[in-house]
């Protein structure tokens, strides 16, 4: 038996043939995106205007950035329910540091980002070293982060920020809104990390089979810690965008955003059990959600009905894509 019995490896096309594209896990989210866009375009004239497309992307940016960290976490088989609350807390405290303590704004932003990272590390430590279920850890830290934000601000939003902060939310470079550029950069970095580094592979490996990864020498706990830290980091980057959009620190902001982020990740084809998925899918998922919100608004649909339609389309999209999961 020589190794011709080893059937020649079917060369995985590096090029993008149409067939390979169809077999890619991105195919279905993409088809979903195109179908929904066309529907929206038919129903509303304004939909395909450049202005509206940039408008949608800008609206997507906050949840889109949250969903990056969420993708890392879900790929390891975890979940992070605290992202919305962490974002709100970071935004509130950053604003507070600028307004109440009088810290220079850039410093306050950096401090806020460091705080978000630290909160992520706490989540990660509890999950990885504490060996506690992620859903319950992050549910608890979600409640705690909200409470802390409200205690700090006394429930009032914190306004009076330097006006250039709004650049992060509504500024433009050329025609492109700044938050859209930030989102694109964050996705690019995430793609490289997940697809081209050992760390990225380990993220997938832990989601696939944690025991096997650990026994083969992957530092599973460190990787787990890292993904929650990344989620905290992206939550605080989202906070920067949000603060720019709201021009204030809002302790109540982002309620339920964790669910939107999860929906984006799953719509993008990532398995909720971990181990499989692509970051670009998440981007598609986030945009799909944004288009739904935007399109239904543009069509002037009754807001109650919007929830029903949105739920239905999400179900439909996941149903069609389910074989890839």
């Amino acid at each position, binding site marked *: *038996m020589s190794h011709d019995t080893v059937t020649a*490896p*079917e060369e995985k096309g590096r090029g993008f043939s149409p067939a390979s594209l169809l077999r890619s896990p991105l195919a279905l989210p993409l088809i979903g995106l195109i179908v929904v866009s066309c529907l929206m375009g038919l129903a509303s004239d304004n939909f395909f205007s450049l202005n509206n497309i940039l408008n949608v992307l800008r609206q997507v940016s906050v949840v889109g950035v949250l969903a990056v960290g969420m993708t890392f976490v879900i790929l390891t088989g975890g979940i992070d329910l605290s992202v919305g609350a962490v974002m709100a807390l970071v935004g509130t405290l950053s604003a507070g540091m600028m307004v109440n303590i009088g810290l220079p704004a850039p410093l306050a932003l950096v401090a806020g980002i460091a705080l978000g990272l630290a909160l992520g590390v706490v989540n990660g430590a509890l999950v990885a070293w504490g060996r506690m279920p992620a859903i319950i850890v992050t549910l608890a830290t979600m409640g705690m982060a909200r409470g802390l934000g409200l205690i700090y601000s006394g429930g009032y939003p914190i306004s009076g920020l330097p006006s250039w902060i709004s650049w992060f939310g509504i500024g433009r470079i050329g025609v492109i809104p700044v938050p859209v550029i930030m989102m694109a950069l964050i996705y690019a970095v995430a793609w*490289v990390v997940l697809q*081209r580094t050992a760390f990225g592979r380990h993220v997938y*490996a832990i989601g696939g089979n944690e025991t*096997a990864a650990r026994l083969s020498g*992957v530092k599973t706990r460190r990787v787990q810690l890292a993904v929650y830290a990344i989620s905290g980091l992206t939550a605080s980057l989202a906070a920067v965008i949000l603060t720019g959009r709201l021009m204030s620190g809002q302790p109540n902001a982002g309620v339920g955003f964790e669910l939107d982020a999860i929906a984006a990740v799953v719509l993008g084809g990532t398995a909720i059990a971990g181990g499989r998925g692509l970051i670009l899918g998440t981007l598609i998922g986030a945009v799909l959600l944004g288009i739904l919100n935007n399109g239904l608004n543009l069509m002037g649909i009754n807001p109650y009905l919007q929830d029903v339609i949105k739920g239905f389309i999400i179900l439909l999209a996941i149903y069609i894509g389910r074989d890839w999961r």
Partner: protein
Amino acid sequence: MLELNGIKKRFGRIEVLHGVDLRVHAGEVHALLGENGAGKSTLMKILTGILQPSEGTIRIDGAERHFADYDEAIAAGVGIVFQEFSLIPYLDAVENMFLGRELRGRFGLLDRRAMRARAREIMRQLAVDVPLDVPVARLSVAEQQFVEIAKALSLNARILVLDEPTATLTPSEVEHLFAVMRELRRQDVAIIFISHHLEEIFEICDRITVLRDGQFVGSCAVSEVDNDRVVEMMVGRRIESSFPPKPGVDPAAPVVLEAEEVQLRRGGPVSRFELRSGEILGFAGLVGSGRTETVLALLGAYPAARCKVRMDGVEKRFSGPDEGLAHGIGLLPESRKDEGLITSFSILQNVSLNNYGKYRRNHWFIDLRKELDCTTAAMAAVRVKAQGPHARVDTLSGGNQQKVVIARWLNHDMRVLIFDEPTRGIDVGAKAEIYALMRAFTARGHSIITVSSELPEVIGLSDRVCVFRQGGIVATVEGADINSETIMTHATTGRVEHVA
């Protein structure tokens, strides 16, 4: 009694069975043989309704049957012990045995007493004493295997398929199983038996059928063939002695790894052993004698009461396999599916899983081309039969999956490899090559600890053998003392020193 005719099976575009015939009579034990990936398990899954054939027919007692799922097969009197475990980890043995077929008492509620009594009876038949009340996750692999077997026996099947049931058993337990098989044969049950241990075939089977690459090669009575002929049918060529010669280890060779004190449980025995450069150290013992736990404890993957290890004379305390890896120690775990493979990964990703240092570019990034080249080479070295390095490992046959895990470690520049049941489920041809690779590895001055329940393997491969009993090493034998009598004597009657 059972007739499979022209069975073909395609997965997507790939045909893995090309028209296989199988005829089994009542009251015979029929061996199904073939290399890894020949299609044995697939054929059995088709027989039991778990997979649907692309073409071909199944006849039982002359009547053509179609099984849409396993339940229908069971109803028709066909039962199987799967190659991969199918137990529910948190349910106990009784609950597992009767899962889906619970006995009911008053008001349709469970009749737990009756199920327990029946389970005890089956276990007594098998002459094993498996704890019935603890979650099966806490049982040893062998005990779980017996629960699997008991579960299939509880079906009272007329056709019973055993897919590599002995891969995790020690000889005495295999004997118990054979006794039960003989009893079933007397009761006119047809048994299809899959094993890569050919001596078992000659001991228990009446007829054999051989597959090669999804093709039917032949079928005959066991009495008409001998070992070499069977191997030739399977592999298509002769295999010389499967064990490479032992070069003999220089007694002055430096000690790489020294376990000064390993105590698994408080109050249990304390083991010590040393591993020298260039040697293969075998760990023998009965099932549950603590070999797996000991090797895990070395790396800090099992919470032993005490574990004092020296590497190159320096005291070390590993907190986990990651630190072991950093010091050049690799572990191939006992259960490939639960502990070895990332089943959603491709072969390539599994092989390179912990070895990205080899394919780094600019320090941070993976060099995809180098990764592909190395993996292709590693796959060829252990003869993984697959569509290519990008095939997902869960589409591979059991033996090929095992080879992927082996390839992962041989692809690594390790100093010490710990192989726990390395050849479980691997066919004879590939075994010989893996043994040769292990020897080539030690010839470079590296060392291997191999835990094996297959006595011939331990004897043929090891330079020295540590014999375990009841959680500790009772003897270490070398040279001519490495023979089955000595080892078995130590393993069954060796004195265990209990230390407070």
